[in-house]
């Protein structure tokens, strides 16, 4: 039975779009990535799950309880970090742990103090004197300290330095190993890729993808760098599933690279750029490998599946696509 489930969940902010027919299902003991660009509806979905917003239609349940009606009971076993962490200025971690121990009716201080040490946070420092990163750490510790069965984290790494981000990732992996469930929202793909078992992508308030990471990787394209010899003729055709992204005669010699080209050619030494093709492979590698083996290319680099490309493809809106086409035409 899923620990968290939404069915056709919809909500709008008057004229503004919120979310539309969102369907999610989380199994326990998993880390679930919830991806989407800013304003896509991640926080709205999470706020409905936390009982802060009332859905216009559809259902949302956690532990088989209704998120709106049984919010208080659900929140007993949920740890939540909002997207924009704001805490009381007088709060210190120590006071926060005392407060939560009273509210939750169990002593959360021992684990809280342990986490404070792990996240290098001074327990007596008040929020008004904290940096943004320390406020984020405080919110994380307060969310984790009661060992919740479900953690709902809305962009939890924002404000954390890379070392603390690693520490958080490690901590979340431990939570999953202990059988707890994590809903991890982010707009940074690499975080989700490094952490999650399953990923849902939301765009314009609608879920556009909900797959395991392995399924997503199978769908994701790979980048291929194909180096030709200066005197050999370029290939006259490409194998199925391979698309040409860039080749040197696409542009006039000496003109500066556009930012898109620079991104494509990153990692290619300058002296090879004049005879390197950039390709994209979708699907199985075998046809391409056979095709490449028949030709005598001096160098072929086959990259890993790029979720980044998949992610960008999902998120490109009609308007941005039109903009990109217009730029290409220039």
């Amino acid at each position, binding site marked *: 039975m899923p620990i968290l489930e939404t069915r056709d969940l919809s909500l709008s*902010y008057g004229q503004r779009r919120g979310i539309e027919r969102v369907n999610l299902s989380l199994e326990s003991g998993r880390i679930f990535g919830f991806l989407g660009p800013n304003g896509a509806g991640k*926080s*709205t979905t999470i*706020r409905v799950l*936390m*009982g*802060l*917003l*009332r859905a216009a239609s559809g259902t949302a349940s956690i532990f088989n309880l209704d998120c709106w009606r049984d*919010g*208080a*009971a659900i*929140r*007993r076993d*949920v740890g*939540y970090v*909002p997207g*924009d962490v*704001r*805490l*009381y200025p*007088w709060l210190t971690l120590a*006071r926060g742990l005392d*407060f*939560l*121990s*009273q*509210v*939750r009716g169990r002593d959360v201080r021992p684990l809280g103090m342990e986490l404070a040490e792990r996240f290098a946070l001074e327990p007596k420092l008040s929020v008004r004197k904290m940096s943004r990163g320390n406020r984020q750490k405080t*919110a994380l510790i307060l969310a984790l300290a009661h060992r919740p069965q479900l953690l709902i984290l809305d962009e939890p790494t924002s404000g954390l330095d890379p070392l603390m981000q690693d520490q958080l990732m490690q901590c979340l992996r431990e939570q999953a190993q202990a059988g707890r469930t994590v809903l991890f929202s982010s707009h940074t793909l690499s975080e989700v890729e490094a952490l999650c078992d399953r990923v849902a992508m939301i765009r314009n308030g609608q879920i556009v993808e909900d797959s395991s990471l392995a399924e997503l990787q199978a769908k994701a394209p790979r980048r291929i760098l194909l180096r030709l010899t200066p005197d050999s003729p370029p290939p006259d055709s490409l194998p199925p599933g391979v698309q040409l992204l860039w080749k040197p005669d696409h542009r006039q010699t000496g003109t500066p690279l556009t930012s898109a080209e620079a991104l494509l050619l990153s990692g290619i030494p300058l002296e090879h750029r004049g005879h390197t093709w950039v390709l994209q492979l979708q699907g199985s590698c075998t046809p391409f490998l056979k095709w490449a083996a028949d030709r005598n290319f001096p160098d072929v680099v086959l990259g890993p599946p790029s979720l980044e490309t998949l992610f960008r493809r999902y998120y490109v809106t009609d308007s941005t696509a039109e903009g990109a086409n217009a730029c290409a035409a220039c």
Partner: protein
Amino acid sequence: MRGLLNRIRMEMQWPCFWFSLGLFVAMGLLTALLPKVLGNIHEMFERLPLIKPLITALLGVDPGDNLSAQLSQAFLWTHPTVLTLIWAWELMYCSRLPAGEIDRGTADFLMCLPASRTTLFVTESLGWLSSGLLILTAGYSGHLLATSFVHPEMRLTLRSTLMVLSNLAALYLAVGGLAFLLSALSDRRGRAIGSVFAILLASFLVNFLAQFQTWAKQVSWLSMMEYYRPAIVIQNDAFPLADIAVLLAIAAATWTAALAVICRRSICTV
């Protein structure tokens, strides 16, 4: 609930202390000084004719050319300093949930605790009631202490004082209930405070204009100040049961409506 009450204590103990001290001092000073100042009120009425309608509006009765000893004591309970201190406290306190919490961004933290919105609101209301008790007791203590410096003939009887205090407590409840309701309907604390302030100001203005304008007299029953008239209570020496009942009805209706709104509304921070 203990944790939630402790949170309120942490946040509000010092403001409550300062408001209580302020009211203690203000009521003490006014009790001691008003009889002396108001002894020559007829001269003031001659020099500044606008003072008389103002005092009439505050007292709810025409003081004539000279204020009686008892009426001058009634003036204490409607003095703008006293009412301002009490209302300022109420506006500050009762606009915290949910408007204040949304405004400062802490609503997510508070409302995602394992407590229902009813529990949060009831806890907040308990803090409001107990702080009101403290503040009114402080004011009364200031008054009581200062009466020893007042001529015995100028003193109010304990019975009259307690009747006026009951009326003031009912007004406290009505204003607080209204503030809770407007806070529940708003996402901005400033807007909630401004709305309550505007209603209180309108109440006072209607009471003031009722002396000159027939239309204002006709709608004066809408004014909250119409149900808080210490001068009449002292003059008649009768418990203002009807006035208190109206104020308590306003308090109950607005508080219940506030609870209903808080339990049903979405908490939007975007």
